[in-house]
């Protein structure tokens, strides 16, 4: 019930195209859904995040769509650029005692071709 399922495992998109990564969760106690971007050899960096009372959040070229009833959320990268090539992790968070517990999806390796 703590699992977050992410797909696809890898994604290849042409420059200027739309990249879409999907995630699904089971535990309705999750109350915060961040996306992290990770470049090789670097730590994950927060990209964008959403709470379940909002159906969509947009920041620049990045949009999260959230479907609470289906327990699914997705990341859309518009006008994808070669510099967006990285691994993307969705995550789900809930309060656990003294801290927030972050459950990661398995990651999507995105390659944007020039």
């Amino acid at each position, binding site marked *: 019930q703590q699992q977050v399922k992410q797909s696809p495992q890898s994604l290849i998109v042409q420059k200027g195209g739309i990249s879409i990564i999907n995630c699904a969760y089971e535990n309705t106690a999750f109350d915060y859904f*961040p996306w992290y971007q990770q470049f090789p*050899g670097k*730590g994950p960096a*927060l990209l964008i995040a959403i709470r379940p009372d909002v159906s969509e959040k947009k920041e620049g070229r990045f949009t999260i769509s959230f479907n609470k009833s289906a327990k699914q959320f997705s990341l859309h990268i518009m006008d994808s650029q070669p510099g967006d090539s990285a691994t993307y*992790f969705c995550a789900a968070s809930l309060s656990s005692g*003294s*801290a927030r*517990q972050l459950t990661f999806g*398995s990651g999507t390796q995105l390659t944007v071709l020039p």
Partner: protein
Amino acid sequence: DAMVIQNPRYQVTQFGKPVTLSCSQTLNHNVMYWYQQKSSQAPKLLFHYYDKDFNNEADTPDNFQSRRPNTSFCFLDIRSPGLGDAAMYLCATSSRWDRGSTDTQYFGPGTRLTVL
């Protein structure tokens, strides 16, 4: 400005030789986390500190220990590294009370550990 700093960035150790990785933060966050990330996998939480309170994940091996001498610093000690402990070790912080930032975890750049 760096907010979560990890040293060293790369660490090579020998099988069974103790090693210590360090993490420091300038965010004054009261929660610090240690994650292990193996190649092509998601980060896996090892343990976290809420202030000085230590919280171990149930499946974290006894070989892994941690110390937090003050708010800014946290250490990961691997008492007897095995070949299977070769990984990227990530430190992260969050603020228990900073609801406005929606409880974000901020990650350091990681330390890549190689075990020979």
